[in-house]
């Protein structure tokens, strides 16, 4: 050894051996998997947002395993699951994307799911260049609902605009006799950032249409002290409060509302403030809290029962604890996985039963069509709405159900409440046109 200093020598040897092991490990497992479809799972099991998301990964992985184990893959094509940790950091996510975009061991990727809003935004250009669609369940840029401007961006199921519209429509359905929307004062408590402010444009249109008074209450991240905000709500004698919150600020809002004497059942959470992790920390104060959802909690749906029988009970599940099973986020993972596999199935109908490329996956996504019959076949009646995507419509659903927390579990208290899609589409198209103009995009023709 040329090193006189043993310290330096050891360091050198250690780094060489790490590199050597990596290379060797690469050779050991490099098997040909070109007959499988790559399904990257970008999870964040560490970092600031890890705690609430645990059931989400379990739901996704369990359904993919269900497809592999029980159905023998999609039309015989097995799913090759690859998990990549992002810690919810954009740069880690980009590394994962670059690692997967040309496939792994010959197994190509058809649809990429960023599982993070900032990552989805960062991928806008790259995915168009690489022709890989990215699938965002209930998040992402709302303007991307317009598929002719955003061909590879899919904010599927319920964009924020129809989410807030469904919240307003729920309030409409709860009007007392003789009361009109114009008599109401509605406050929106929102995360002060793109996530919260994004819904103002459609909300203001609804305000014009219905004549209610709108009060905007910003909460800065992380929002662990909201006394000032709720005092303001109490002084203004608000009738209903809409939430557009995320993370730890939701239970804090619920608790503070209860402390200021605001009726809990007049708080309406949005899609990302309606999970178990949003209410359990609020304790007693959370009883009666309502929220919209596109994937109600519960274990009675027949697909969830099938997963229980074939995956969970056989010890194949990714669940970290039995209490996660059938929660809102577990079911959300299942719904996401179902939609991804449905898109691939649609693509296979056209391109043949083989692993699909990104371009073919995009075609499949734009032809997702889940009607009542298909919902029954899938065993998802009540768990998912009818949904069909197209070239111009990358959202496809636009309805939500109401959940109410009873202190132990979420109860589903309404049928599907549709958002006002015509109204929200106006905002979508205005924003999409502005984006196209700024970035020199010629919108493609959609039939």
């Amino acid at each position, binding site marked *: 050894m040329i090193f006189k200093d043993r310290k330096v020598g050891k360091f050198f040897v250690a780094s060489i051996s790490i590199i050597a092991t990596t290379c060797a490990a690469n050779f050991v497992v490099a098997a040909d998997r070109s007959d499988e479809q790559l399904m990257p799972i970008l999870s964040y*099991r*560490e970092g600031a947002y890890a705690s609430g998301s645990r059931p989400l990964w379990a739901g996704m992985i369990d359904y993919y395993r269900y497809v592999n184990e029980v159905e023998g893959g999609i039309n015989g094509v097995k799913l090759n699951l690859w998990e990549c940790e992002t810690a919810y950091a954009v740069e880690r996510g980009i590394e994962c994307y670059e*690692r997967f975009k040309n496939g792994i061991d010959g197994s190509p990727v058809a649809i990429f799911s960023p599982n993070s809003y900032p990552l989805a935004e*960062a991928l806008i250009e*790259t995915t168009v*260049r690489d022709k890989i669609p990215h699938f965002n369940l209930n998040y992402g840029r709302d303007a991307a609902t317009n598929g002719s401007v955003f061909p590879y961006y899919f904010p599927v199921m319920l964009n924020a605009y129809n989410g807030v519209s469904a919240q307003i429509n729920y309030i409409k359905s709860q009007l007392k006799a003789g009361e009109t929307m114009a008599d109401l004062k509605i406050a929106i408590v929102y995360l002060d950032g*793109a996530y919260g402010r994004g819904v103002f444009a459609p909300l203001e249109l609804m305000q014009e249409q219905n004549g209610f008074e709108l009060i905007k209450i910003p909460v800065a991240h992380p929002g662990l002290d909201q006394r000032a905000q709720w005092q303001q709500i109490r002084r203004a004698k608000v009738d209903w409060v809409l939430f557009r919150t995320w993370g730890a600020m939701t239970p804090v809002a619920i608790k503070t509302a209860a402390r200021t004497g605001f009726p809990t059942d007049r708080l309406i959470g949005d899609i990302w403030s309606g999970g178990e992790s949003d209410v359990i920390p609020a304790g007693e104060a959370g009883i009666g809290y309502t929220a919209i959802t596109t994937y109600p909690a519960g274990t009675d749906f027949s697909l969830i029962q099938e997963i229980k029988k074939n995956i969970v009970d056989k010890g194949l599940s990714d669940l970290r604890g039995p209490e996660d099973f059938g929660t809102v986020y577990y079911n959300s993972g299942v719904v996401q996985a179902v939609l991804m596999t449905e898109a691939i199935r649609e693509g296979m109908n056209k391109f043949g039963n083989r692993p699909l490329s990104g371009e073919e996956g995009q075609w499949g996504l734009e032809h997702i069509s889940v009607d009542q019959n298909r919902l029954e076949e899938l065993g998802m009646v009540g768990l998912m709405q009818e949904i069909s995507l197209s070239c111009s419509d990358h959202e496809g659903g636009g309805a939500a159900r109401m959940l109410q927390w009873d202190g132990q579990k979420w109860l589903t208290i309404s049928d599907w409440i549709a958002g006002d899609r015509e109204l929200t589409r106006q905002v979508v198209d205005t924003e999409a046109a502005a984006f196209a103009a700024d970035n020199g995009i010629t919108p493609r023709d959609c039939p």
Partner: protein
Amino acid sequence: MKTGDKNLVAEFGRFKISERFIKTIYLFTILILLFFVIPLYTSEYWMRAIIMPTLILGLAGLGLNLLFGYAGQASLGTAAFMAVGAFVAFNLMYRIEWLPLPIAYLGGGVAAGLAGLLFGLPSLRIKGFYLIASTLTAQFLSIWFFTNFGWFYNYNPSLTISATNWVIFGIDFSSPKGRYWIVVFTTTVLTWFAYNIVHSKTGRNWMAVRDMDTAAAVIGVPVVRAKLSVFFVSSFICGIAGILWAFAYLGAIDATGFSLDKSFQLLFIIIIGGLGSIYGSYIGSAFIILTPILLNILTKNTGLDQIIDQAFLSNMQKVLFGALIIFLLIRQPEGVMRIISLWWIRLIKRQKSN
């Protein structure tokens, strides 16, 4: 071997090889690798996912290193200055369409430099932890500022900014390779600039201020000018790094992308790489970016992920990463760059004594 020539390392007949010569060869090899071999002969993964973030964070680290490592002014506002650079450059590009791209970048850098100057003013009166608090203000202020004044992000509903111009002298640089070349070129130029400035009188003044500012003032070093100039130069480099990070690497970013976490990350980069070392900034950034990826690939390829729970692995990687940092810093508190240079010195000495 001629006596008296300290730099001489080896002699092959008529060829005399000096230490400086070897260093130049190394430098050119690295530059050829960066400019040609990586973009032309490796996959996009290496270019986009590994080299680009390493270079950009290394550049931002270099900016912080000038401030903290060379001039001793502690700062937690690095990401804020990156944000100023990115947002100002975006507005220059978007609102003044005829403006050449390099000018827009320079404009963003200068704006960041001026912001740095402003938040550097307290450094004339306060030091150490108190100065950290003052630069922390810049950090929080910038996020608040760039989320609340819609003009800066052109009232985009997602609050993000993205590049609208990639044309330099009529050539379109919007492809991944084009962006990569912009990053490599800018990084090389700024590193060269930083190298020269720390070896100039200005750089010596900074180091004098770092070592003891009262003594520096006594021997006639212009302390005020040294402190303000280092804040300007450091923030200028951070601003340019912010532009590259936002547009060339990520593509789109909002103000929260330049959060306190990023400032801390950059601080770790220079502590690991080596305070007061130009190349150390890049070594530290490579360490921070590559280790998690290496650990992730290692666990997947050795099949560990089939046996052990994924959540446990993810968190173990973080623990391992932390342990590695502690181990490194105990072994060599002056950072990885110091280890490398010690190794280098030993190697050269051995050669010389032969």
